[in-house]
């Protein structure tokens, strides 16, 4: 077996998260590689919500919306589940996360 090659990529960059960043539907399609139709379907089912309503000047998503869309896609691909099951899994994950935070808060008292 050949000796492993190690390559270090130079130029450390500073990523500046922009909590106020907003993405249009077209940008979300490009960033998630999800079909537009599917994103709209997830929105209709309440699995992800745009930060501005379509009637108030077009769709706009934030980073959290982007993350949810990617999680939905990963779940769908790995577990092959339908929309009601996706909704159930996402609700349970959110609830577990919330309860873990609450438990941590009380345990450290």
């Amino acid at each position: 077996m050949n000796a492993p090659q190690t390559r270090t990529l130079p130029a450390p960059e500073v990523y500046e998260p922009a909590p106020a960043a907003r993405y249009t539907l077209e940008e979300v399609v490009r960033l998630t590689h999800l079909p537009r139709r599917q994103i709209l379907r997830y929105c209709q089912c309440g699995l992800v919500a745009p930060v501005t309503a379509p009637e108030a000047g077009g769709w706009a998503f934030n980073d959290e919306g982007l993350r949810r869309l990617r999680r939905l896609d990963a779940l769908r691909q790995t577990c092959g589940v339908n929309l009601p099951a996706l909704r159930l899994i996402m609700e349970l994950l959110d609830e577990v996360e919330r309860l873990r935070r609450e438990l941590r808060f009380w345990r450290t008292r």
Partner: protein
Amino acid sequence: MPVEFKDYYAILGVPRDATEEDIKKAFRKLARQYHPDVARDKKAAEEKFKEINEAYEVLSDPAKRQKYDTLGAQWQAGAGFEPPPGWQSARGARWASPDGTQTFEFHFGGTGFSDFFEQFFGRGGLEDLLRQARAGRGAGEDFADTAAAGRRGQDIEGDLLVTLEEAFHGAVRSLSLQKTDPRTGRTETHTFKVRIPAGVQDGQTIRVPGQGGAGLGGGPPGDLYLRVRLAAHPWFRTRGSDLYYDLDLAPWEAVLGTAVEIPTLDGKVTVRIPHGTSGGRQLRVQGRGLPRGAGERGDLYVVVNIEVPDHLSAEERHLWEQLRRVSRFQPRPT
């Protein structure tokens, strides 16, 4: 990947049969001593503070502590550590794409957690659940279409330990992500910096674009999602952007009222305790919590806890007995 075993009991200086209360006390004492704000050697103190936090994170949680005790039963001080057979890592040293065509091993640096913690006590987020789901079936058997050309790389999630002071002021952290492709043995280390925005909350994720898995067939790389874990603090607990400070009072302070100076993240404040304050009462100090955007801040809640003396002098006992005789106070419904 062998990792160095962490002796969390030794780090907190408590015996293996320590009670939850002993562990909490040991943590608070050490956390005060090594708090980066008070220590002289800030860099060394910060490392120690993170180590103490990690030990506390595991030992203060009964389920994690039990897992740790089982894991550590075979371990001898000074010896290398190989996890017992059949132990599933909580956090991935190895990652495989859903279609099984893409695998690599990865390793984070600079997150504030040790490799040992990341392997066995990572939070069990969605990524871990998905990996377990994938392990339960043959790779690629029912998603052959996902290998289509131009497919985007997988997202990676990782935990990032953030101190309350970093969350308060904001900070820049240097991170490294080492990825090894097991087919070629080639290792790539990406070094980058991430700004932690002021007011970041526990559980919030920071997206680092393009630092996830490589894309397939010319597709773009995935993103790295860093999940913020706020470090336990010797004085404050957090809930959203509010802070909670547990204040111990003597019974007479609670009954007669007093004024107490308490720490905040930006200087001390004096809190007036009104007379007749019962245990559990919360006193709000407006606007002294964490930033929450638009120049606003959360609140600081002082939670009253009444402590009683466990040793009494003859005179004190006499006075308490006298109080019992004359008082008409009735704490329970008759």
